[in-house]
């Protein structure tokens, strides 16, 4: 079976030894101990497992690790720079846009990707851009508010 021996994660080259047909989600969580990326459904329906691959929000539960060799992967652990929270992380705290927090890392990375495509989204653009993310606690209106807050602070950076 083909193996993956190196991944570019959060700006570092991480060595590993994983079958390349395993999911990126399981390799991040089990082999690299990056457990901020969450399992929610395993079929791409909830987006809790979202990471950025070359800047694009990507469902790691549907992505084979072999497909992202050499690409830049950013997980929630890599979003804050030098202890300074990303504007989107700050906005989620300010808007209290979470309850249990299980969907939050995927939600934040999805929102960062949205602002990269659309720096100042309307409510309708947020709905269409974020509709793949489930928050079972129902904090959707707060997430929308957080995205507007982050957009105002240059959260696409």
């Amino acid at each position: 079976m083909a193996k993956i021996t190196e991944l570019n994660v959060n700006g570092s080259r991480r060595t590993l030894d994983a079958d390349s047909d395993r999911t990126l989600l399981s390799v991040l969580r089990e082999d690299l101990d990056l457990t901020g990326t969450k399992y929610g459904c395993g079929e791409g329906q909830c987006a809790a497992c979202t990471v950025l691959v070359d800047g694009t929000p990507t469902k790691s539960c549907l992505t084979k690790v072999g497909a992202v060799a050499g690409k830049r992967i950013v997980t929630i652990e890599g979003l804050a720079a030098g202890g300074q929270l990303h504007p989107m992380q700050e906005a989620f705290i300010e808007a209290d846009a979470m309850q249990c927090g299980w969907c939050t890392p995927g939600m934040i990375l999805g929102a960062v990707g949205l602002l990269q495509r659309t720096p100042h989204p309307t409510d309708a653009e947020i709905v269409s851009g974020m509709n793949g993310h489930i928050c079972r606690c129902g904090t959707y209106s707060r997430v929308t508010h957080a995205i507007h807050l982050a957009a105002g602070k240059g959260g696409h950076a």
Partner: protein
Amino acid sequence: MNRRDFFAVLGGGVVVMLVEDEMLAQETGGGRGGRRAQPQNLNAWLHIGETGIVTVFSGKVEVGQNARTSLTQAVAEELRAPVSSIHMVLADTDLTPYDMGTVGSMTTPLMWPVMRRAAAAARETLVDLASQKWMVERSTVQVADGKVSAGSRSAGFGELTHGETLTRTIPANVALAPATEWKIAGTSLPKVNARDIVTGAQRYTYDRKAPGMLYAKVLRPPSFGATLLSLDSAATEAIPGVKVLREGDFVGVTATDSSRAERAVATLKAEWKPLVAETTSKDVYAYFKQNAQGAAAGPGLTAYTVAYIAHVPLEPRSALAEWKDGKLTVWTGSQRPFGVRSELAEHFGIPEENVRVIVPDTGSGYGGKHDGEAAYEAARLAKATGQPVKRDWTREEEMTWAYFRPGGLIEVAGKLNLDGTLAEWEMHNYNSGPSGLKTPYDVANKTEEMHQSKSPLRQGSYRGLAGTANHFARESYMDELAHSAGIDPLEFRLKNARNERLRAVLQAAAVKFGWKDRKKTPGRGFGISGGFEKGSYVANCVEVNAVNGAVKVVRVVEAFECGAIVNPEHLRNQVEGAVAMGMGGALFEHVDFAGNRILTNRLSRYRVPRFADMPVIESVLLDRRDLPSAGAGETPIMGIAPAIGNAIFDATAQRIRALPMMPDKLSAGSNSALA
């Protein structure tokens, strides 16, 4: 935990224990010998360390409802300590006092005052210490902002407790500051663990690991109730690093990584004997009535039905189990850590003292995580392999093998006097439960009965489970009566409600919504509902657009009153979340089953509310500082379904008496619109 252990674990300082009554406080105050020096009736305890760090212990769990934050506020308020100095240890059966569970919206009415009393007692202990050390009158000693002072002398909590190993046992009836004087309680303190959540640092059970840990999978039967006739595991056991355990109908597989465990369990060859199915999701309502205990109601009542629905906590059930020297330690996301401890002790035939259950902050529960299935699976495989074992349920398992919110049949009848007041009221609930069955409206002649029945599915608690069902039936039928009498639905409710708190939420919602000025246009409809449960009052006003059979909820106003508000922003978040979640059960969530199989076993087959479903949600919070604080986790969800149903009737003249109201119409909607 032995009282000497307090200091061994936490270092010197002062420990304050709160017990239920004074007599027991005296009995246990000196610390009895033996294995359980902790008083049996201990409600809470806290430790003030020599560094000034305050460590507080409670058996409650954090599942997103912000118990960690609200309990911190309780302690900060009474101890007059900075929030940053307070460390809350929750839900660890070896460290925290016994707690029956984080259920029934009881953390705020029951645990919150206990925490305040423990902190108030600790503050008084600090006053005693200062008075003795400084040889000053007790009445001259002040406590504020984490400092104790008297005249020109001042000391931090840590300085005062330095070198002490003092324990105090305090009865639970210590006096508390009234809500009108709160400084930290009653404010919108931000979520204390928010930073850990947004950085991914928070470790939920699913994220936990132990050295040498194995990953487990369990072989599931093709239908529930099936029994295992034969198992061929030779091919599976030949895979390197894979072990198989069979105990009766339980078959578990362990491997060094989860992918291997998943592949391994698929190689098992099993033959199952199915159980004959008694009913299906389509026929279950008649089944409830046929199997009702005692006399069912006669004919002529109006029937409402409520489907089984799934909790869908986004973190599925999970557990990590480890055996050491005959003692079992389990990390698991359960709402009842002490209940899980009892379950495990019973399963393995060991004393409860030999089982430790720790509940890390959990990815939600909604009443769906009361028991310890994953914990037991992990523990039996850990025992068999002699290694720590992790057992993470998949979404499909969570949606198939967890328990569900009960389905129910509810029958209602009522008669009005000529002036529009209620003359007679009759309501029967089959299977879904008694909570919220009693009407908050005034009617002298009433019959309200709960009929236990037989459930074809595993059923259990759910956020406001029967309260939602009973409010749906009652508030829909109240609307039917109002229309039959030609009275405005708000006016009709006020005419029949003497309870001031119920009237207040109805009026507050109506004012915010602009009920009296609402303008009906084609396809547009408005609905209202009110209710009471678990010490709190709720009213909803809803606007819908119903065109060509499709319904869009446009706007929801919810007025909510639960006594003195502990944290306004978190309460608002809770109310908005309840509206969002309640819309799922109201409009499209339903568990389908046939042949003892759950057909809605994935998120692609079971629709939950998404961004695109959200209306404008506005909340009106009534802060009654003169009343004790009640919980808010459940009641805010109870009135949303009838208010939507009443608005649909207003728009279309069609009365929908079944939850969900739009099982098919909306089901193809936003699930396919993935980013």
